[in-house]
Every structure is written in C-alpha cells, then in structure tokens.
C-alpha cells in the first residue's frame, strides 16, 4: 500500500466521521426540538383546559379528554347574560386603560425632566422616587384604605386607580431611554422656538416609542390582573374588577366548574389575544423593561 493510498483512506474516513457527527448533531437537535415542543404543549395545557371546559356541557366537564364532544357557547351566553361579568369586564378595561395612559404621560414626563434638565435637587428627586421601589404595596394598603375612607374614595373608579397612576419603575425605564435621545435634537427644537413642553411632546416622546410600548404592556397587564387593592377598596359588586369579580363568582358558583372556567377564560383571553398579535413586540418590550428596569 502506498502512502498516498493511506492518506486517501484516512481522509475519507475522516470525511465519513464528519458526516456521522453531523447526523448525530442533527438527530440531537431534533430530539431537543421535540422535547421543547412537548414541554411547551405542557405549559399551555392549563390554558387549553380552561378554554375547552368553558365550551363543554356540565355532564362532560369531568371527562379527562381535552376536546369537547359537542363544543357550544352556551356557558358564555349564560355568564354574559348574567350581566355582572360584562360590567366587571368594562370596569377592568376602563381602569387599566386610564392607568396606562396616566403612567405613559407622567412617567415619561418625569423621566424626561430628570434626564434632560439640569437643576439643583434633580438627583434628590430621582433618588426619592427610586426609593419608593423598595416599599411593597402591601405596606401601603392600610393607609390607602384609611385615606380612601376619609375622602370617600371607597367603591369608586378613582379609589381603585389612584395608587397606580404613576410608578417609579416607569420613571426609571423612561429615564434610561431618554438618555438615547441626542441633546442636539432638543437644542435644535429650542432654536426653532418650541417651548419645553412642545419639545418633550413632539420631539423627545416620539423617539422613545418602543419604551412607551413596553411600559404600556406592563402597566396594562399589571392593572388588568391586579387583585389585592381592588379587593380591599370595593364592596359594591358592580364596581368589582374582573379578578375580584371572578373570585367572588367562583365562591358562589362552587360546583359549576364549566361556568367558573368560562369566567376565567373571559378574563384571560383578551390578554392572550393581544400577546398573539403583538408577540414579537411584547417579548422585545419585556426584555427591555426587564434588563433596563
């Protein structure tokens, strides 16, 4: 055997080994994908069961099967005709929307001021606002309740909303993002004769739209699902938000699980749909808010 022969053999063996390794890798990759897929399906099972049960008749609720035998919307009709759920839905929507708008406006205004203005006391204001992040809501609910009681805010939209109209987290997030707005733009706008509010509103704010979107998602989701404070501040059932309403409804509907699941679905599906539409956007927002905030 010549040396050239051995060389060829060795190299073809190496080549073969290479493709084998590649095959092994792609097999490993396929297994990894399948396991991740299985895990993902498992993750959404509670949501899937919630929706499937809301489409079932009472007699098949106790079947382990996921797919309803004859899916129907009667549960939704029943729950919505009852009227209360409709009202709770509207309450939640109004409260979450107003709170979100308030946060977007005030958090960015404060973030912008603390970022782009230089004046004495700026640092103290920033630290003071930031320090409120360390105070848990649970510590404030008792004073808030007493405050609401003496001002007559119990059982009102304002009573439910006022604690969340601004958040230190939002201020911090927006301040971080206004750092990326070049000072030259602001200076140019000043020379053009815009006043400071106009500069904030029509020059700086449009440049941090992604951050605004991220903040909007967090604030809206947080208020849509908020439970402790709305539970404390409302006793009038017509003013309940969805989570508080669902909680009381579950208690009285005790054994009618298909109705409870319908109520749960009504309060969950809107946020799920929003997520599925704006998925890419929301995940980017979560990363931004998570890492910068």
């Amino acid at each position: 055997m010549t040396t050239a022969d051995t060389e060829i053999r060795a190299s073809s063996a190496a080549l073969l080994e290479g493709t084998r390794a590649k095959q092994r890798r792609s097999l490993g990759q396929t297994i990894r994908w399948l396991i991740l897929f299985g895990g993902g399906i498992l993750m959404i099972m509670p949501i899937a069961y919630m929706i499937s049960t809301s489409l079932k008749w009472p007699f098949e609720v106790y079947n382990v099967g996921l797919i309803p035998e004859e899916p129907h919307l009667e549960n939704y009709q029943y729950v919505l005709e009852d009227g209360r759920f409709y009202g709770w839905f509207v309450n939640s929507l109004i409260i979450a929307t107003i709170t979100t708008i308030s946060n977007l406006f005030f958090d960015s205004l404060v973030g912008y001021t603390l970022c782009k203005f230089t004046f004495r006391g700026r640092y103290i204001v920033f630290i003071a606002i930031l320090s409120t992040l360390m105070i848990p809501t649970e510590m404030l609910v008792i004073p808030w309740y007493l405050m609401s009681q003496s001002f007559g805010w119990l059982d009102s939209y304002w009573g439910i909303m006022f604690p969340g109209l601004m958040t230190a987290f939002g201020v911090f997030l927006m301040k971080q993002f206004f750092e990326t707005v070049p000072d030259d733009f602001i200076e140019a706008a000043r020379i053009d004769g815009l006043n400071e509010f106009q500069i904030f509103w029509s020059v700086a704010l449009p440049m941090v739209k992604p951050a605004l979107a991220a903040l909007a998602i967090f604030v809206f989701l947080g208020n849509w699902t908020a439970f402790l404070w709305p539970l404390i501040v409302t006793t009038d059932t017509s003013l309940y938000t969805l989570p508080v309403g669902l909680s009381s409804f579950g208690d009285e509907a005790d054994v009618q699980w298909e109705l409870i699941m319908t109520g749960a679905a009504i309060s969950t599906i809107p946020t799920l749909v929003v997520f599925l539409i704006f998925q890419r956007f929301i995940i980017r927002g979560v990363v931004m808010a998570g890492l910068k905030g």
Partner: protein
Amino acid sequence: MQFYRNLTITQKRTVWAWGFLAVPILFYVIIRFYPTGNAMIISFQEWNLLGDRTWTGFDNYVTLVRDPVFWQVFGNTFMYLLLGTPISLVVSFVIAYHLDKVRFAHGFLRALYFLPFMTSAVAMAWVWRWFYQGVPIGLFNNALASVGIAQIEFLNSTTNALPAILAPAVWAGLGFQIIIFMAGLRAIPRSYYEAAQIDGVSSWTVLWEITLPLLRPTIVFIVVFSSIGFLRIFDHVFNMTTNNPGGPLNSTKPLVLMIYETAFASFDMGYAAAQTVVLFLVLLVVSLLQLRLLRDR
C-alpha cells in the same frame, strides 16, 4: 408673566423642570411617602377603625413575636421562597439554554412558554384549583384514577397544599424568566464560544466555565425578582383556599394573607400595620442579602 420674562435661559428651564415635576412630586408625597410613614406610625398604635387610636409602643410587635400563627405564617412565606425560587430558576434556565439553540419554529416555541405569563393569577388559580379536586371532579385525580393510581389529596392536605398552590405561581412566572435568560445568553459574545470550540472544550465545561459565570447579572436579577414575588404571594393562595383562606390549618397562609385578614376581617389596624412593617423589612433584607451574596464573589 413679567417675572418669567426677566429670567435667564437657565432659570427659565428650571421653572419648566419644577413645573413638570409638580404634580408627580405631589403624587409621590401623598400616595407613597406619607402612607409609608403612616403605616409605621399605626404599627405602634392600637386601633380597630372605629374607636380612638391609642399609643401602645412596641406592643404589636411583642404580640407578633409571641403569636405562634405568625411564626407558622413566617415559615410558610419562606417555604414559598425556598421552593419557588430555585425551582423556577433551574427550570427556566434549562429551557432557555436549549431554546436558545433551536432555530426551527423558535418564535412558536417561545410563545408557548411565554403565554402563561400573560394570564391573570386569579383566573389561573381557579383553573388549577379545579385540576386539584378529588374524583370525579379534578383533572389530575381523574387522570390518576384512569390509570389506576391512588388518589392524591392536593389542597386538603397540610403537607401537599403549599406546593400545590406554589405550582401555578411558578408556572406563570417561567415565561418571563426564560425570556430574560435568553436575552442574557444572547449578550454573551460569540467569540468566547468559538475560542472554546477551537480548544476542543466539552460543551459541559463551556456551560460551567463560560456561560454561567457570564450570566451572573441575569441570574442575580432573576433570583431577586422572583424571591420578592414569592415572598409577596397572595392571589393564588387566597383564590385556591377561599372557603378557608390559608388553610388547611394555616398550612398555606403567607404573610400577605395574614395582613389582609388582620386588617380587613378583624380590623386590627395596628397589628396589621406591624405585620406590613415586618414584610417590608423581610423584603429589604432578603434582596440586599442576595445582591451581596451573588454580586461580589
């Protein structure tokens, strides 16, 4: 207006700045700082909402320390933390680590894992509560029964109820942690991995020597964030045990639920305020400790 016109440009800007801050400062003073101080003051008083407030010094705190229920609740609260944080940290890292290496239908898989984060805790607590019911109602026990395995008492058992309530809380938070971990993994420069590959280092070594050390800031963030979440657990417990909040036999009751009951069922405001101050201190100590332990080493 005359006054404003006479100001220098810098002074004008300062006026604008304080103008912008006026309403927010009012908000933070009235809605954040004043209540914080107020909670601390009430914690030194005896007050049932109707009668007079009377100063009692440290009485509420002394009662708290002597209250066996408080210590049980304190233990439960840390149980949620000690089980929840490590489990969700490891599970979310493992999923993120592998998900990061998958290209095919990546966005779809990611969406599956993230979806639970978009749900409301109250709604999902009721769904899981249904899962946990006994035969013939609950999904889990029905599934066990169909393969002939003995029933498991979930929410009615003093030992199983706490983990059973913790499960949906961990489940709902995983998606967020996975997304944050994946962002952390992406931020590690490719060149490190390429260098390791040239040196022929095993992927296990790469994980322990490159990936995990470089992920430290991400890990610190997730540990602190999820710890605070578990220490403040309330929605799940309240909704999964409504007929006997925090039961059976207080075995699932966390601090926030105790606060809620003391303040808004017994109307013992002073005692409840003292409990909130303890919660505040616990959160403060735990997060500072974790930042210290995990950050510099």
